[in-house]
C-alpha cells in the first residue's frame, strides 16, 4: 500500500479498515506466539556509539579558532527527546587529532558524560579531558518538546579558551541515500544510471542528531601538538566502557574502553568500505588505514564504480595514505555565514557544515565529471556563530512538510 497511487491507496486503506473492523468484532486483536518463548529481543544497535559525521573548519568569525564537531546517534525523530536526546554515560567520545603529517594521532580530546537523571530537567555534565590540556567540565543543552528549541548552552573553559556545546541538534548532513544506493546498484549491475540522482531528496532532512562541538584555539594546538605543514587532521571515535551492554572476558580488568565506531573523511566508512568489513574498519586505527589494511576493499569498490587509477589515487590520498583523517589547513582563510562558504576553502580542505561533500566525492568517483546528487544544502540554515550547527527540529504536527526536497 505504501507505494500505490493515492486512489489505490484510498481503496487499500478502506479494504484494510474493513478487514480490521471485521477482525476486531470477533477478535479484537490477535496473539503472536505468546506460548512460544523463542521470540526474545534481537541484537540491538549501539545507537549511542553510532557515529555519523566529523566536521573540521576554522571559525569563519575568528580564524584563530578551529571548530571540531562530531555527530552521533542520527535519525532522531523530532519530539523523541526523552530517551534519544541523551548521551550515554558509558561511551567515550574521542576526537583524535593528527598534527605531524603522518597517520598517527598526536593528541586526543575525550568527552564523557554523567548519567542522565531522568526526573527533572537536570542537564548532563560533559567531562572534557585530553592528552594536552587539563580536564574541565561543561553542561549539555537539555532538549525539550516545546515548539521552540532550547537555547544552546556554550561553555568556555577559562584555562584553555576551549568552548564546548553538546546536545541535540538538527542533523547537518544532506545526502540522498536511496539515490546513491540505487546508483551503486546500477553500476554493480553493469548498467550505470545517473538518473537515479534526479530525485534530489535529502534523506537527513527533518531529523535530529546528538552532537559535540568544540572550539579550539589554534595557538593551543600549535604549542602543544607541534603542528607540521600548518595542517591538523581529525578522526572521531567512539568507545564503550568495558563490561557494559556486552560482557567480555576482560571485564574484570581495570576500567577501559572498547572501540565501537570511527569516522573521518565522509563516505569512506559508509559508502566505500564493504558491509562485510565495516566492523573491522570501525575498530581499526588510522595507522592501519595507512598500512593498506582496507585499501584493497576501497580500491575494489571504486574500481567497481568505474573510477580510474588517477582518481582512485586522489581519493586514496585524502583518506587512506595518511589514515582516514579529515584534514584542514590552518592558513587557508575561512569566511562567510553558517560556518563558512568562501570558495576553495572547503572540503577536502577540512569539512564545513555547508560543504557538499557528496558532490565532491561523486566528482572524483566519476573521474572528475560532474555527477551530483542534487541535494545541495541542508534543510534548515546553519547558525553564524559557534556551534554553527542548527537548533534541533521540534515536534511538528502530522502532515507538516519535513523539507526532504530542497
Amino acid at each position, binding site marked *: 500500500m*505504501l507505494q500505490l497511487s493515492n486512489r489505490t491507496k484510498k481503496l487499500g486503506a478502506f479494504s484494510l479498515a474493513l478487514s480490521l473492523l471485521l477482525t476486531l468484532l470477533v477478535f479484537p486483536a490477535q496473539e503472536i506466539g505468546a*506460548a512460544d518463548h523463542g521470540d526474545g529481543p534481537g541484537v540491538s544497535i549501539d545507537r549511542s556509539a553510532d557515529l555519523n559525521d566529523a566536521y573540521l573548519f576554522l571559525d569563519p568569525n575568528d580564524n584563530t579558532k578551529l571548530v571540531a564537531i562530531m555527530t552521533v546517534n542520527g535519525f532522531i525523530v523530532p519530539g523523541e527527546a526523552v530517551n534519544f536526546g541523551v548521551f550515554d554515560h558509558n561511551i567515550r567520545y574521542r576526537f583524535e587529532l593528527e598534527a605531524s603529517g603522518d597517520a598517527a594521532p598526536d593528541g586526543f580530546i575525550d568527552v564523557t558524560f554523567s548519567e542522565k537523571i531522568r526526573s527533572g530537567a537536570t542537564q548532563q555534565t560533559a567531562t572534557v579531558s585530553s592528552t594536552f590540556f587539563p580536564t574541565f567540565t561543561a553542561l549539555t543543552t537539555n532538549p525539550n518538546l516545546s515548539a521552540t528549541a532550547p537555547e544552546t548552552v556554550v561553555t568556555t573553559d577559562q584555562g584553555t579558551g576551549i568552548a564546548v556545546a553538546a546536545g541535540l541538534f538538527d542533523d547537518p548532513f544532506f545526502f540522498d541515500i536511496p539515490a546513491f544506493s540505487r546508483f551503486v546498484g546500477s553500476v554493480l549491475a553493469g548498467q550505470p544510471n545517473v538518473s537515479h540522482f534526479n530525485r534530489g531528496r535529502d534523506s537527513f532532512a527533518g531529523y535530529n542528531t546528538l552532537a559535540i562541538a568544540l572550539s579550539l584555539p589554534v595557538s593551543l594546538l600549535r604549542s602543544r601538538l607541534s603542528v607540521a605543514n600548518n595542517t591538523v587532521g581529525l578522526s572521531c571515535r567512539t568507545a564503550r566502557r568495558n563490561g557494559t551492554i556486552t560482557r567480555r572476558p576482560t571485564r574484570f580488568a581495570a576500567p577501559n574502553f572498547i572501540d565501537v565506531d570511527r569516522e573521518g573523511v565522509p563516505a569512506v566508512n559508509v559508502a566505500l568500505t564493504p558491509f562485510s568489513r565495516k566492523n573491522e574498519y570501525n575498530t581499526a586505527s588510522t595507522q592501519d588505514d595507512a598500512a593498506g589494511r582496507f585499501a584493497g576493499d576501497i580500491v575494489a569498490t571504486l574500481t567497481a564504480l568505474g573510477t580510474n587509477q588517477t582518481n582512485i589515487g586522489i581519493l586514496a590520498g585524502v583518506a587512506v595514505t595518511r589514515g582516514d583523517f579529515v584534514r584542514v589547513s590552518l592558513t587557508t582563510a575561512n569566511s562567510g555565514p553558517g560556518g563558512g562558504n568562501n570558495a576553495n576553502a572547503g572540503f577536502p580542505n577540512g569539512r564545513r557544515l555547508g560543504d557538499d561533500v557528496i558532490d565532491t566525492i561523486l566528482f572524483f568517483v566519476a573521474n572528475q565529471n560532474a555527477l551530483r546528487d542534487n541535494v545541495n544544502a541542508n534543510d534548515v540554515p546553519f547558525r553564524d556563530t559557534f556551534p554553527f550547527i542548527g537548533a534541533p527540529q521540534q515536534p511538528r504536527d502530522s502532515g507538516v512538510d519535513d523539507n526532504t526536497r530542497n
Partner: protein
Amino acid sequence: MQSKSCFAKLFALTLALALGIGCASSSASPTSATPPAKPIPAESGEAAIRFLEDRVKRDPDDFPALNNLAGRYLLKLRETGNLQWLELAKRSAKASLKSVQAEQNPEALHLLAQTEFAAHDFAAVRDHARQLIELENRKAYPHQLLGDALLELGEYEAAKKAFAEMEVRQRGGHSTLIRQARLAQLTGNNERAQRLHSDALQLASEMVPPEREAVAWIRWQLGETAFSVGDYAKAEIEYRDSLTTFPNYYRALGGLAKTLAAKGDVNGAIEQYRQATAILPDPVFIAALGDLYEAAGRQAEAKAQFALLEKMAALAAANGEVYNRVLAQFYADHDLKPEAAYQMAKREYDARRDIYGADVLAWTSLKAGKIAEAQAAIKEALRLGTADAKLFFHAGMIARAAGDKAVARDFLQRALKLNPQFDLRQASIAKQALAE
C-alpha cells in the same frame, strides 16, 4: 531450597534498597546485579510513526525511513501482540526492498525476516538469515536470526552452532545471553537459564536509549523461569517488576495471572486475566480464564470464554496455521475435538519438528486414542532433557494409558515436584491420577 533462597534475595533486596545501596542478584553469577525495577518512560512512539508515515507517503522510495518505520511497527507488535502491526511492518519492509534491494539494503531483509518469524514462517526466516550471513557475516544478528529459526524448526544442534557464531560476534550481549538461556532451558538447566537471564537484564538495563520492551521481556522471562520450577513468590515479583517497567505489558499480565492462580488466588487471577484479555485476547489467556471461571463455579462465564475461543479458532483457520498449536493444546486439555486436534498438531509437527510440537502431537494423540503414536512423540518431546512439568505430566499420562504404571507414577511425581501448580486444570488431573 528454591523458595528459601528467593526470600533471602528478597530480604537482601529490601535491605539494600533501604540502605540505598546496589543489590546483588541471588544468581550464582557474581558478575551481575539485578537492577531494581523502575518505570522506563515511553517515547512518543505514535508521533514518530506518524512522522515516518508522512515521510514515506511523500517519498515512497525513502528506504531508511521505511526501515525505521518497519522497525517501529515490529516494536509495537512486540509491545502489544496485535497482528495489525505485523502486516504494516511487512509492507514497509517489502516496500524498502522494492526501493533498494538487499545487497545495498540488508536491514530491510532483516526486518522482513523478523515479520516472517512473527508469522511463524520459520523456513523463510532460515533462508533469509542465510542470505544475510552472506551479506553481513561479521555481524551477530544474522546468526541470531538463523539460530532462532532453527530452534523453532527443531534443528537444535544447528541452532546451537548458529548461536555460537553469534556469541563470537557479540560476546555476552543481552540478546546472546537470552539465546544461551533458552538453550539451557531446553536442556533442563533452569538454574543456568535464570542466571543468564539475570545477566541479560543487567545488560539490557544499560542500553541508552533504553529498550523498555526488552527489559520488560527479560523480567517476564525471569518470571516464567521461576514459575516453571514452582517458585511462585519469585515469579510474582518478576512479573510485577516487568509491569513496573512497562505498565500493562500483556505478557507480564498473563504471567501474573497464572502465578496468582497457582497460589490459589482465583479471584485475583481472574482479574489479571481479564485485564490481559482486554489488551490482547490471547487464546492461552482466554482458555486459562475459562478454566478459572469454571473453578470458581461461574459456568456461564466459562462457557463464554470457551465459545470465544471457538470463534477465534474459525478465524485462525482463515488466517493460516499460526494458532494450530495453541488450539490443539486447548482441545486436548479440555477433551474436545480429539481427531481435529490431532490433525492440527500433526500438520504443525510436519512443518516444525521442535520438542513442543512433539509434545502437542503426543498429547493430542493420546486424546485421540493413538497410544503408540503418543509414546513415540513424547519420546521426541523429552529428547533434550527439558525440565518442564507439562512435558512430564503428558509423559506420565501417556505411560498410564499404555499400562506402564511405574513410569507413569515417576513422571507424574516429577511434574508435581517440579511445579506443583503448573496448570490449574491439568495439575489437578495429575494429582488425581497419582492418587489412583
